């Protein structure tokens, strides 16, 4: 994306990733229409970096995460992991990479098998990738990993339903970490949790990142959560990236009207601060029938007739700061009081 001098090659490079659902089928009665869930997304993540992918529900951010992990195959584009192109690898060829890139799920209730004990759930990756390992050794690995995420060895024998949401998410993190992956993709890992628990889990992930040297793709719809954890933030709207910037720059000087609107929705824990709340009107347009040109123009208060013309390209407007908007004359409001 943007050149990083004197840096090792990025751990993850995503180029022009597209994931279209549906597709041409001259059906018996009707033509299937195409949903462009992800439409030309490019970014990369350096080793040890936390990149957050932010957007409303339906913006395609989870699809990006799952496509990067090859849980669905991309329609086009290129995914490189540590220099290796994994875009078209078969299931078997993909298996060695699965140890190195792991996923934490949004819903800690649905993502743990209710019929398996914590030991079996957390130990499953070991069983898959090191089938010869004796049971006792596996158990020890499980207990070490449980300790890492703040659970007790005695929890290993229990079933998921005996745990609270936050504890379950710790189990999910333990499962993702037991093979010591390099890349962790966290798909809204805290949005199903109580606010009081969210901070605990986010802090745990930060701590683990430091201790284990993890690289994290953090997917979220909540800028407040993301500001705390990420080095850089990529904002997504209707299948495309609209702004990518270092966290501080994005919070202090947003360049895209959509980012501005998202920022204005972040609660500020100081009642004396007055600010303008930018309410986006209407829903996100249907990805079945996106607007021409800039897909945000239907809800953008700065939209010009020219916005309907061409899809604005993502271009660098300041070092490391990229946006996809034709209006360079805007001075967008950065909410004061936000800790970036």
């Amino acid at each position, binding site marked *: 994306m943007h050149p990083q001098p004197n840096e090792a090659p990025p751990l993850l490079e995503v180029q022009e990733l597209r994931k279209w659902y549906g597709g041409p089928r001259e059906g018996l009665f009707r033509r299937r229409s195409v949903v462009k869930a992800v439409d030309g997304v490019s970014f990369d993540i350096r080793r040890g970096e936390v990149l957050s992918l932010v957007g409303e529900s339906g913006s395609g951010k989870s699809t990006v995460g*799952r496509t990067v*992990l090859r849980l669905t195959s991309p329609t086009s584009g290129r995914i490189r992991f540590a220099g290796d192109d994994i875009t078209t690898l078969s299931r078997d060829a993909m298996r060695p990479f699965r140890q190195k890139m792991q996923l934490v*799920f949004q819903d800690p209730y649905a993502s743990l*098998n*209710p*019929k398996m004990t914590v030991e079996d759930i957390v130990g*499953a990756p070991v069983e898959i990738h090191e089938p010869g390992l004796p049971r006792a050794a596996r158990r020890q690995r499980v207990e070490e990993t449980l300790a890492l995420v703040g659970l007790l060895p005695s929890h290993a024998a229990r079933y998921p339903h005996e745990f609270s949401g936050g504890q379950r998410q710790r189990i999910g993190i333990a*499962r993702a970490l037991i093979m010591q992956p390099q890349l962790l993709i966290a798909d809204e890992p805290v949005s199903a949790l109580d606010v009081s628990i969210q901070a605990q889990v986010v802090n745990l992930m930060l701590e683990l990142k430091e201790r284990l040297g993890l690289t994290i793709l953090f997917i979220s719809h909540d800028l407040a959560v993301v500001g705390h954890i990420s080095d850089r933030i990529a904002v997504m709207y209707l299948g495309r990236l609209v702004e990518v910037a270092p966290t501080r720059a994005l919070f202090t000087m947003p360049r895209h009207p959509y980012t501005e609107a998202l920022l204005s929705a972040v609660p500020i824990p100081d009642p004396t601060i007055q600010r303008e709340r930018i309410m986006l009107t209407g829903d996100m347009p249907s990805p079945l029938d996106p607007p021409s040109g800039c897909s945000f123009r239907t809800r953008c208060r700065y939209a010009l007739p020219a916005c309907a013309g061409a899809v604005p390209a993502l271009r660098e407007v300041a070092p490391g700061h990229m946006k996809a908007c034709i209006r360079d004359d805007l001075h967008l409001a950065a909410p004061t009081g936000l800790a970036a």
Partner: protein
Amino acid sequence: MSASSSVAPPAAAARPARRRGGALRRFLRHRLAVFGAGVILFLTLACALGPYLLPFTDTHIDIMQRFAPPFSGAHVLGTDALGRDMLARLLMAGRISLLVGFSAMAISMVIGIAVGIVSGYYGGVVGTVLMRFVDAMLCFPSIFLLLAISALINASVSSIILLIAITSWMEVARIVEAQIRALRARDFAVAAEALGASDRRVMFRELLPNAIAPIVVAATLNVAHAILAESYISFLGYGIQPPTPSWGNMLDSAQSYLTSAPWLAILPGLAITLAVTSFNFIGDGLRDALDPRMDGR
């Protein structure tokens, strides 16, 4: 005949659900199901051990005592047209009928689960072809299918078991297919895939245990169905061949004496009814017991 060894009390088949205590408690609250379990336990034990305790074997012919009515002499439940002891025959027949019931259930479960899990997991062309084959099989009324095939083959206990099994696995396949298809989309299945788990591991370790409740219920009802099916075929003369007794062929040979010696028909008829309804009650009870949502009742 070592039929009894494969006959296990069906309650043991009820694998522990999430909370074993909860499931067991709900089952015990279902009176008819407990009654059914008791009857099946009693029938199984009686058929397994009874013949050793009786003074007569099922093939002993007491020609002086033909058509002895029940409770009239040495033969507690009377004798048949050849003077054979009805109780001994009923118990030996029970061994065959229960053996057929359980074995046919086991085989049909294996086929049904295999077909269901493969088509539910892979979906697509494989799933469509398999499930349309299931639909095609279901289109035949199974009794005609049974009779048509049994007219062609040599009837023996094992061939009857196979025959019943291959005409009764389709419902199970449908149940399993629907369950697996739904479970496959759940996050924990996606998680297993993200870990690099093999198809087999996802199918049998992750998905199947979560579908166990409806499978157990279907298995119970399948036993009832198999016992009934064996009775049909044997009653029509295509099934278990005399002198080996089964409840079905006992009914068949009782036809000619329906008015003169009604107990010849009533006793095996009663045994079939008792066994089949008991299995159905157990199935109902298990359905409620394994569904935690029924807890509030």
